[in-house]
Each structure stands twice: as C-alpha cells, then as structure tokens.
C-alpha cells in the first residue's frame, strides 16, 4: 500500500559483531535514553514500578545457547533492532504511508503524525523489530538516530547512533553499506558478515559478524620436562643461569 523508493546508493546501517558482544545492554538503554528525549513521542513505560513493567524499546539484546556436539555449550548475545531492509515489508504493508524508507540513505522511519497505530507493520516485520507505544499509540522503531547522524549541533565525532557511541566493547559499527570501500563494508567482507534470515528476501542492510570458532585449542607443542623434582631442578637452574648474561659460560 505504501511504495518503496528505488534502491538508494547510500545504504546506512549497522554492523554488529557477535564475536565481541558481551550482552551488557548498554546499547539498549542508551537507545532508550536518546529516543525518549528525541525523535517523536517518548518511549513510554507502563507499570514501571509494579508487577508487570513493560516499556517501548527500539533495540533489545537476546541471548541464545548453542550446544556443539563435542564441545562445551556456548552463549551468544544477539542485539536486535530494525535492519533497515531494502525490501521492507513493514513499509509496503502500511495503509497510510506513515511507514517509509528514505530515498536518500535507506533509513526506514515512521512518520508519527500519519501513523494510526494499526500495528500491521509490526505484524509484517519478520524480525520483531517494531514496538507499538502503548501510551502514544504510534509505532516506534529504530531511526538509526537520524537526528544524531546529520546533527550539526553535535560534534562531528558524535554523529553516529547512540548505541554505537556507547558500546563499551566496540561491537557495533555504523556506516554506508552501499559503499564497498567503507569501513563497515570492509569489515563485513573480512569477517564474513551475514544477513539475518536471507531466505525471506527482505534484503536487510544491517549485517551481523559471526562469532569466531571457540574452544579450538591452538596447536602448541607440549612442554618438555627439564626436571622431575627439586634436586633435578637445581641442577637445571645452574645450567640455565650460567647461560644468562653474566653467567659462568
């Protein structure tokens, strides 16, 4: 019902390193703080001090266990927000045109004044990346901090999404994935970055970097024994010391 623009040359997005993400939720709260104060309606919280607190978040971290056959189980932390898909089903499903993809940089946004809160877009998004704000009645989603990345009131070094600026482990990267020579594109190429659920044909712009193999022992020659006990060790020590500068030999 809403049309996507022709694919943009510039495709802004995030590259998230699953090898480095320690699951600290810094990105979750930094996002909440910035986007509560900025773009559109605040991200509200219902029953914030009660039995069933439930608020709007544009970015959440999930954790999954992986059990290899012959190695210890692993825990993977998986931050998830809007992937700013090229073929964004959340846009085409929107009955009012409120949900749209920007022609100039590919960011998917919701124009809150046109949003009727019908929730169709959240239903259409296969990633569960949109949340209807229970207080404002409008759909909220990652804006890629569109009000930071071009913001002339911010120092240039701060013109990046709040989640990227705050990530303590440096697991989040922001840039133009439409430019093969950008740092993020190179990172994706080097580390085998992948699309989330590519079979759905949504063509996400955001990429994930896979965890490196774990619990694979580095080939390392076993240590050779120089002494079995204190006495043997003393003899070895005398030989070793004499080989040091200032020694007897």
């Amino acid at each position, binding site marked *: 019902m809403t049309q996507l623009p022709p694919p943009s040359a510039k495709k802004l997005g995030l590259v998230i390193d699953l090898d480095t*993400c320690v699951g600290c939720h810094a990105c979750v709260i*930094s996002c*909440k703080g910035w986007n509560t104060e900025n773009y559109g309606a605040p991200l509200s919280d219902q029953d914030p001090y009660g039995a069933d607190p439930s608020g709007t978040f544009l970015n959440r971290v999930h954790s999954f266990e992986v059990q290899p056959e012959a190695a210890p189980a692993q825990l993977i932390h998986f931050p998830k927000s809007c992937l700013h898909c090229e073929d964004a089903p959340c846009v085409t499903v929107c009955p009012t045109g409120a949900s749209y993809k920007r022609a100039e940089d590919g960011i998917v946004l919701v124009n809150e004044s046109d949003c009727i809160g019908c929730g169709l877009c959240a239903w259409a998004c296969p990633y569960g990346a949109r949340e209807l704000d229970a207080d404002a009645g409008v759909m909220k989603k990652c804006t890629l901090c569109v009000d930071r990345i071009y913001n002339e009131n911010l120092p240039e070094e701060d013109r990046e999404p709040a989640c990227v600026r705050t990530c303590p482990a440096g697991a989040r990267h922001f840039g133009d994935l439409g430019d093969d020579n950008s740092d993020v594109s190179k990172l994706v190429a080097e580390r085998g970055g992948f699309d989330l659920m590519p079979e759905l044909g949504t063509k996400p712009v955001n990429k994930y970097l896979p965890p490196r193999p774990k619990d694979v022992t580095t080939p*390392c020659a076993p240590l050779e024994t120089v002494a079995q006990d204190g006495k043997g060790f003393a003899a070895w020590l005398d030989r070793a010391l004499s080989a040091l500068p200032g020694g007897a030999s």
Partner: protein
Amino acid sequence: MPKDQPVVETSPNVSDEVRQTTCYMCACRCGINVHMKGGKVAYIEGNKDHPVNKGVLCAKGSAGIMQHNAPSRLRAPLKRVGPRGSGEYEEISWDEALETAVSWLKPIRDTAPEKLAFFTGRDQSQSFTSFWAQGYGTPNYAAHGGFCSVNMAAAGIYTMGGAFWEFGQPDWDHTKLFMLFGVAEDHDSNPIKMGIGKIKERGARMVSVNPIRTGYNAVADDWIGITPGTDGLFILSLVHCLLKAGKIDLDYLARFTNASVLIDQDPKSDQYGLFLRDKDGQPQVVDRRSGALAPWNGQGVDPDLSGSHRARGITHRPVFHMMADRYLSDDYAPETVADRCGIPAPRIHEIAADLARVAFDEAITLDRKWIDFRGVKHKQMIGRPVSFHAMRGISAHANGFQTCRALHMLQIILGTVETPGGMRFKPPYPKPATAHPKPHCKVAPGQPLDGPHLGYVQGPEDLCLDAAGDPARIDKAYTWENPMSAHGLMHMVISNAHAGDPYKIDTLFMYMANMAWNSSMNVGGVHAMLTDKDENGDYVIPRIIYSDAYSSEMVAYADLILPDTTYLERHDCISILDRPICEADGIADAIRWPVVEPDRDVRGFQSVLCDLGARLELPGFVNEDGSAKYTDYADYITNHIRRPGIGPLAGFRDGGDGRGGVNPDQLRSYIDNGGFWLSHVPEDAAYYKPFNMGYQDWAVKMGCYDVVQPYIFQLYVEPMRKFQAAAEGIGSRQPPDHLRAQVQKTMDPLPIWYPSAEAKAEDYPVHALTQRPMAMYHSWGSQNAWLRQIHGVNPLYVPTKIWEANRFADGDWAKITSPHGTITVPVAHQASLNENTVWTWNAIGKRKGAWALDNDAPEATKGFLLNHLIHELMPPKGDGLRWANSDPITGQAAWFDLRVRIEKTDTPKEVQPEMPPIKSLVPKAPKILRWKVGK
C-alpha cells in the same frame, strides 16, 4: 527526495548545556556528559576525554536519569516513632536530626569512643570518612571491602604492591593472551569491555576460567568451566608445569623478586623461615659477581637465584629453591588436580604450554631505555605478552587470599607484571605493603585515634589486640582469627555487636550499605539481631543511624535516617588518597558536583559529616576558635591539607599539579576540565614501575609518596611466616590455642591451596554462586524503571546434568537447601555451566515495601537472594566458639563457598521464605512514565 517523503528535523537542539561529572551507577566511576534542558537532566552519555571510559557508557550509566528521578528517593530526615522494622517514621528538620545524632555521639566520645561503630559501605570517600572516624576516636571504622574483594587487594599489596582494577590493568595495547578469572561486574566494568574489544580487534586470544559461561566468558575463545573454589589448585598446577619445563623468566625472577633472597632453613633456629638480613636489616642475596652476600638493593648487585649460604652453622637457601621443592611435587601435577578442579589434565598441560609459548616465543620488545634501582641501565623493555585479571570470583572463598597470591605468583614467574603486554600498575600504585600504614586501635576518651584504622600488619606485634589479648575492634579485624584483614569486616559488625563479642556497642552508624538485605549473610538472622531487645526491653544494639539516598531495606531498621542526595546532586572527590581512577599511563582524579540541586530536603552525606564533625568538635573539623572548619564537603575538598602540599585533589593545585598549595578555584578548574584531571606517565617510566627510577622520581614529584621506594616482589611474604612462627610457639605474642593450627596452616609464606568449603559434599553436592548483572549494581538497579525491565526476576540457573536428574521442565520451582536453611525458587536450564554449579543474579530479589516498588513486583515474588542460605558463622563445632565464615587470613566473607542440595517442588505462591512487607517510606510510584523534559 520524493515529494511525499516527510521532512525530518535532522539537526534538533540536543541540549542547552552539557555538564560533565562522574557516574555513580556502579563503582566503576566513568566520566559522563549530562545534557541539560531547561535546568533538567535530559540525557546522559559517556565523556570521550575521560581516562576511565573514553566516551562509552554501560546500561547503568545511561539509565542514570531514571535513578536520579527514582520515586524511591528519600525526601527528608526521619525519626523512628514505631518499633524497629515497622517503618513508622516522622519527618524532622535537619537541625533536629543533627542535634539528635550529637546527643548520642557526644557522650560516648567523651567516655568510650569504641562504643560507636561507623561503617561506610560502598563509600567512595574513605580517605574522608576514615579521617572523620579517626578524629572521633573510635577504632571501629571500615568500608565494605571485607565482604567484597579484600583478598584480591591484600594479596596483591603484600605480594607485589598492588592488584587489579584500581591498582592495575592488563596492557590492553600489547597483550596477546588474556586470561580472565571470575570478576564482579562493577569492578572496572567498562574498561574490561573496552579491553576485550581491543584485543579481539587485534586478533589476540582470551581464555576465561569461570564456572559460568556468561558475559565476558561468553566471548572468550576458550572457556575453562572450573569447579568453584579450586582456582588456586589449578593455578598452582600451571606453576608446576611451567617450573617443570623451565618456562620461567629467570632474569626477571632474580632481579625483581625475592626469589633470590636467602631464607633460614634450620627448624631449630628462632629465625627459621625468615630472611637472612645484614646489620642494617636488609634481606640478603648472593651476588653473582662475587659469590658473596649482598643486600637485595645494593648498587650493581646481580642476585643469584641459586646461591645458598651457610653461616654460623645454619643453611640459607634462596626462596626460589623452596618454590621448586614445593611446586614440583606431584601434588600439583595436572593428573593429580584434574578431577578436583573439573578440568581434564591434558587441558591443563595445553594451557601451560600456551602461556609459555606466548610469554617466551612471542615476547615483545619496546626500545625504551630505563635505569633500575641498582643503577643497572637497560636498553629495552622486554614484554611477556600474557596478562591476567581476576577479582571477586577467586576472592570470595575462605582460601581466597592464598588463591590470589598464587595468581600473582603465576604472573610473576612468567615475568609479566609491569612488563609490556602483561599486567600494569596504575599510579599511585605500585606501593608495597611496607609503604602503607599499619592499623591503629588505641582509644582514649575524648581523643582522636592514634592513627589510621586500616593498614598492613608486618607481624603479630601489629595486631589490634588489647592488653589482655582480646580484639580491640568490634569486627575483630587484625586478630588471630584473621590477621591481615586490611579492609575490616563490615559483615561481622551487626552479628558481633548483637552478641556483645568482643564487647557491646552503643551506636551503629552506617552509610550506603544494605546490611538488612543483600549485603548481609543470614538476612532473617540480621533482622532479628537489629530488632532484638534485652531483659529491660531495650534494643540490644541500642542506636542505629543510617544514611542512604533511597528507601532501601536497611532504612526500616534505623532510629535516625539522614537522607543522602543522588549522585547528580552532590560533591564528591575520587581521590588519589583513596580509590583513584588512574590508568597505567596516567595519574588522574575526578569530582562529582551538583549538576542539579536537590528538590528534596536532603544533604550529601559527606557534608553532613563535616557538620557533625564541627558540632562534635572533632580535630580537623573545627578552627582554633571552635567554629566549623568546613561549610560543606566542597569546602573540605578544596581546603583540606593531608600532608604538606597534598590535598584530596591532586590537579590544579596552587603551584602545579600533584603537589601544591590550596587553590580556591580548584573545583571550578575541574569542572572546566570535564570533571577530572589527568597527567601522563613519561614513556621511560611507563613499565617496570616498582624498579624503574624514572617512575620512582616521577611518582614522588606527583605526590604518590614522599621518597623514592623501589622494592622487589614478595613471592615469599615474610610477615606471614612471622604469624606462622608464632603459631609454632615463637615470640611473646601468641595466638589462642584454638587458633594455632589454623594460623600455622593458612599463614604459609608461599602460596598454598586448601579446600575451603566446610559443608559435606555428600550432603550438599552442588556449588551455588551469584553473579552481578552488567546492567545492575547491587540493590540499586531495581528502583530504576529501565533497568528492572532487563533484570526483573532471577531464576536459579541449573546445569544440564542436574536439570535432567531432577526431571526439571521450564517453569519449575525447586527447594534449595544449605546447612543453614532452605529457599524455594524458580529454576531455569543453562547448558554453558560447570556441571556441579548452580547460580543466580545477585541482589535482584527485593523485600516487599522497599525501593518504591509495588508489593507484587516480581523482584519480591519471584526474585530471591542466596544470602538466606549463607551464615556469617560456620555451623557450631560444639566448642562454644563463634567461627566466622570468612577467609582465615583477611576475614573476607566466603560467599562463594556455599554448597547446597536441590530438589524439585510444587510451585508455591511466591518465593520462600516469604518475608512480611515493610512500610514504604516514600509515596507510591507512578503507573506510567513518558520521560521527555524538552519540548
């Protein structure tokens, strides 16, 4: 742009003003930019110039806005009007509150100052609060280190003049192999995350040793799921392998450690086990140049690791020979320790080989000249790029001190401490135990204490005992029960005060420690002690004053509540005299300042202490005419002189940085500089700091200490041998007979391992641990509307073996039983876990009525504490004595020694034990938040 695409404001105004201060959402102390709109806090982000966090900020830090505005904030001083624990209070004025406090504190100061026990919890102003307590004259002062990580701190100071976190850090820029043991998340939290990110970016490797594979351990290349409490044994097995293979840095050991110092080997000698010393008292080594004895620090001396010496019929051998004798024993062979540690022997061999390979085959060299304390000129700095880090995980056991010592020994034999790629100290560390004060405890009515409370004992003569040999302190720190208790034992104060052991007190005065909940073992027992009355109907602990910013579980037990400010409303100084924020390459300190003024009738606790100090006429808090010396804490920070030229803040002093006179505009200079001050360590002083004269001279210039004091690492801690010798009957100060065996066994001057859990494995086969979530700081996080949506409940995580044996399914509950009690809690499966270990998040469980949460909040109905299962004392042994559940060397609370059994049970209405709600001291919290302060 298509014509129907909306126009987005991409350059909105971010804030009217940015105010830079220091975070206090945990103990990490990052720099923050507080964005203000219309005088209100609009957004908080990390300060990019700040040495600790360099711009990044964790979830807690970003959620500071919710803490600052939390409905749980106390609003005015309160006086108890109902029974203790009832929550019946009445608001009073500050004048009444302070006069009440004075009416309690003045008479006891004039008669028996020890009747005040003043303990300050997670205080970050200990150089100030201890100064106050010293002026008051009570020996009973400490902060929370005793139930936190004193084992790591004290083992580090005694062994090498510093430990981790505030003392030292891995050389993130050069390390090639990083080995991480258990840590508490708020200890250096952002720097560790940044460091892990850095080493991963470089392709360096990370090995984690932890029963639980979450957080940092989840991203480690290799995970060693060790059995809790066996880290020391595993480490000593690595030492065994490295010695056996000769993969040790002999040159480093000879020059920079006491491995070459000679020890009396004659069991009949009264000097047995002590250093051979010359007439000046200097420990002796054999000089390789001459084969003759020489002092360890003699100019040009080349200490011999292998040189023995016989004098007056007594053989003296170097420490290194004793190490070889001990650690080459098959007791430490991987094959011997594997089952106990839960690590296959081949894996231990592999790790030892990996450490050796990186340390020696991948050594790095920096072309920087430096001169050591013996006058030897070095052309280069040789690096062994293996680094280690550990904190709480290996500390909070009854064998924690010796385990931390073992880890430091492992680092040292590899030659990685203070070398490129290894572990680096942060100024004002390194600083050996001998350069710290000794503890003081001499009390005189109406007089200040005879010196600082806390310090480092050098032998039995330094213990805090009275003339009869009984403990001088209420927490029994520095007694034969725990001779090296460098941080005191806050966790024993309520228990000992209630028992009148060693004596009764009058007033318990505490700050920022939730001792009626998550900071105490045996929570129900503590409630009973706090409310217990004697035969006259008086409380056994007669008076309790408590200062907190929030409506915590502890406030309900206070007679007088002094409400503190939030961290954005206060002055603080993160001082080099205290727990500084320095980096390996720089000396730094920082402030907090009121970026907003309180909208409640609350005052910063330190300012209140200035006022109380003046009203009590304590030395240091009044002028000669009796008037108040400081109007508030800011005044103290600016004008207090600790030693000539040295004040609480080292930056922007009159006449320069480090040392200088009072600068009345100092706080303004800090604010203008982003809330902190930083000065870099010169390049040629950046490594080998304890031995490097370039560093030593710089440190004196900066005021870290007053004279150069190079030293060598103490692999063999002679003061420990002095305690051990006393236990063997040597010397005039003798331990009581019931402690002789314990002192003799545990005060071994070379690292040992002994099993620490007392509970029988067959009855309680499962280890039970807690971890602190990265998005929560002890009990504070649950009052935070954003953070509690991340961690609102805490199931007990159960490994696959136990999960299957009990036929658990999702949503099940279980009864968890320890020798001390039973709790009933929800369980969840986790495969990435040591197979005999269960664990849960620390301090998510809350008492109903606290923290402005509704009574049916999940933190109270499904959240729980393991604390109910842990006692501050060991089960009675039938000897009538109270044996602390603590490390016998430092007194550190042995939280992680807990063993339990687990059984499936029907789902109860809520977690058990169910505690009655406490009455909330604050108005009800809002039902919705839509937080936007700008238009």
